[in-house]
């Protein structure tokens, strides 16, 4: 288990994606699975930084914890913002995505892309920290 800590600001996103990319390559995920993991991590990290910290007038870090177990790559993002469970949000339905762009609500795509792009996504609030957990099965596809 390895932990990397980044400042909770938008210019950390590239480095956080880079961790996801390297771990994905190391365990041999397909190019597509690696890209989708990177995208998912970026989306949730963005939400933590923008909604959890910036908009709440708080500051804090974003940790990336890496673990390989039971043929799975498990990446966890940890932060100190107010508890927020992305899975409790109503996801936009099919009909949103077929609306013409001019009439569409401009938000709500981040969590959708996250959950849609990886094998399993979990949320926990443990030790006063948000834990967003991204699970990718190794050796598939």
């Amino acid at each position: 288990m390895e932990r990397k800590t980044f400042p909770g600001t938008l210019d950390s996103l590239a480095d956080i994606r880079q961790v996801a990319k390297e771990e994905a390559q190391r365990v041999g995920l397909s190019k597509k699975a690696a890209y989708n993991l990177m995208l998912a991590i970026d989306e949730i990290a963005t939400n933590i930084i923008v909604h959890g910290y910036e908009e709440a007038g708080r500051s804090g870090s974003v940790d990336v914890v890496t673990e390989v177990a039971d043929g799975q790559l498990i990446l966890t993002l940890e932060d100190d913002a107010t508890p927020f469970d992305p899975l409790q949000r109503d996801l936009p339905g099919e009909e949103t995505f077929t609306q013409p762009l001019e009439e569409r609500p401009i938000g709500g795509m981040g969590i959708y892309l996250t959950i849609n792009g990886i094998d399993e996504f979990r949320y926990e609030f443990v030790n006063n920290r948000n834990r967003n957990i991204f699970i990718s099965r190794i050796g598939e596809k």
Partner: protein
Amino acid sequence: MSFQILAEAKKVAKITLIGEVDSLSAREFQKEIERLAVEQPDELVLFVENLTFISSAGLRVLIFAKQKMGTHLAVYMVKPQESVVETLEKTGLHHSINIVDQYL
């Protein structure tokens, strides 16, 4: 005799995106869209052959462009990489954006 001519004049806004568009760089992207919107273009052409990553923050700028530049705006995306196309498809943006191999 065999001769045919087709003609049109358009205001075209061209943007080349290189590298990664996340929520940080999307701000620059958005600023360019705002600048170009003043010109009231008929077409927005995005050259994205070397765009390697785009998050929902980048997609939001595309939706914003369409809303800001007017419904008549035709949006072209030239040579997107496969993962970019997949993201557009998942979010339905491919219905409103013309994905092309070459801009004519």
